[in-house]
């Protein structure tokens, strides 16, 4: 990844900008704040070193994210690191990896309590569910973490590899827009989520969507059947 910028078509650039502005509005509606690196969203499109692709790379820091389980002296911070890759010149989505790190913060120490990433690769991967999430203890790279304004000392899990099992769990499309959608639904008030969902509806139509033809065909062929074989349809 070169980090050299690339200009996307307006439809793609403006869709990502609108998505993140809608997310910011939801966060601010909840009296919370969203920190992003200084680079404007539309300038987060980068060259990949391969002339046939381009990527969108962005990190987000959510401070004091509502969490009922935590006592008043602790807070939950979430950092998101997204990398979505597109084919050029079609600008169709080929790959998406969205990392999430959840930190419980107390006395300026951030304990990494959960790490996960959502994955999608065009055409699918052998023995991987087409769309999936993988739980792990993998921290977001230091440079990406700090670029968001995250300035806490990070404490990794006490025992290395504490997260022994990193099962890949099938998911629906969990590209960046869906991840933000779920975060708002999970943590913010219903009114805020309803407004966000309304705002994002038209934006999602403009975002480059992943191609999932094998999965779609599999589902269409046996509508009454909603079992695991669908998630591996790309391997048939």
């Amino acid at each position, binding site marked *: 990844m070169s980090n*050299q*910028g*690339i*200009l*996307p*078509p*307006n439809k793609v*650039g*403006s869709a990502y*900008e*609108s998505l993140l*502005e809608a997310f910011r509005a939801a966060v601010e509606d909840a009296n919370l704040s969203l920190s992003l690196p*200084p*680079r*404007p*969203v*539309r*300038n987060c499109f980068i*060259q990949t070193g391969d002339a046939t692709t381009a990527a969108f790379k962005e990190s987000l820091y959510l401070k004091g994210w509502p969490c009922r389980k935590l006592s008043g002296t602790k807070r939950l911070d979430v950092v998101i690191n997204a990398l979505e890759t597109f084919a*050029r*010149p079609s*600008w169709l989505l080929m790959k998406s990896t969205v990392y999430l790190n959840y930190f419980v913060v107390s006395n300026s120490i951030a304990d990494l309590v959960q790490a996960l990433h959502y994955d999608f690769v065009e055409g699918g991967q052998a023995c991987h569910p087409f769309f999936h999430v993988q739980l792990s203890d993998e921290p977001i790279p230091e440079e990406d973490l700090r670029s968001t304004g995250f300035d806490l000392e990070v404490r990794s899990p006490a025992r290395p590899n504490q997260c022994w099992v990193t099962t890949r769990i099938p998911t629906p499309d969990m590209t960046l827009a869906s991840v933000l959608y779920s975060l708002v639904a999970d943590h913010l008030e219903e009114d805020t989520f309803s407004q966000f969902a309304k705002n994002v509806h038209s934006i999602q139509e403009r975002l480059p969507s992943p191609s999932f033809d094998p999965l779609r065909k599999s589902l269409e062929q046996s509508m009454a059947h909603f079992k695991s074989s669908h998630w591996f349809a790309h391997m048939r």
Partner: protein
Amino acid sequence: MPTEIKVVLFEDTAQTQSEILRALAKHLKPDGTVLPFGNGFEESEDDKKLMYENRIENILTKEPFAGSTLLVADRDLSKSVNLGFTGLSVNAVAAAAKKLAIPICSYARQPEGDNYDWRGRWEEGHIVLSFSEGEDELARRASVAARGFAQIAAELPKVMAVAGNNSAVKILAALLGKPEYSEKFALYGVGDQNRLSEILAQAKLPDQRIQRMTHFLGYWLWDSLLRYPGLLVNEIAAGSYLNIAESDFDEKKVQVIFEEALYHGPFEDVKKPQWWRGVLDDIVARENCTDGLALVQKKIGQAIRRSQCCVDSSKSAGYYCIISRKPVSLENSKGGLSWFPRGADLTRISNPKFDEYGPWLGA
């Protein structure tokens, strides 16, 4: 709303008045006229006892000044006895203009043009023009402003009649023929309290609604969207964004490539063109190029040079320093200041300028 443009000039020095009137008349031809304030009006004895802003308000609602498109006023009206008002100030004229929703431009010879322009930028409520380049350029810019407001006023009734155009953002986006950019327009409204009182002001009569909306949208467009690069980009910001050296972007053969993105709308100024940033993106992406430089080099040749950051010429620019008006890189500048419209994501202040003016520029 009048379709013919009528400009009223407040100038208290006879010689200057005559020069500016002549220049304005030239630039307003064939669809506009200019009248000097100070002649041809009558006031009752009761009116003469009112505060100046109320007197001027009354005068401007009567012939020959009724239906004015734009007021152009000297900042220094210390010789206003010549206009029949001893001690008149531009503030009283601006206050009357605001009440009547008539746009106003002001100008002054001193201090230096750039400083004055900058000082004026913090004085919301009227357009600040520089007199440092002479009366002809002043008149040319004033006529651009007058034509812009007249164009908005002429087109607003049909835009506002469309059922879906129910907010200032949608109205302006429709007026400029870019409804698909509504979300970006909206980002120029976030936190803009300067215009809040105007958008909240309710007008009862349809003609007043058009007049108020013209006033509001015109200032918003001139003062915000056309000033802070993000949705639109001026010549320096466009070259910087496309990664093309300033002098190379000036070349006709380069500008032809991006002609489709040129802004044509209210306040369009052939001497100070602007481009739609989204259309620039599409022109580059359509040719499967990484940036404007790659596109221009592909079409014209390798002689075209990359943009240079004004702080560190070894770096490409990409952004625009709104104080120095030079291309600047992300690393050598600050952005997202609280007084920047949120949509102005290409507007920055170079680090040296920020260090110089820091405490006054805010965070």
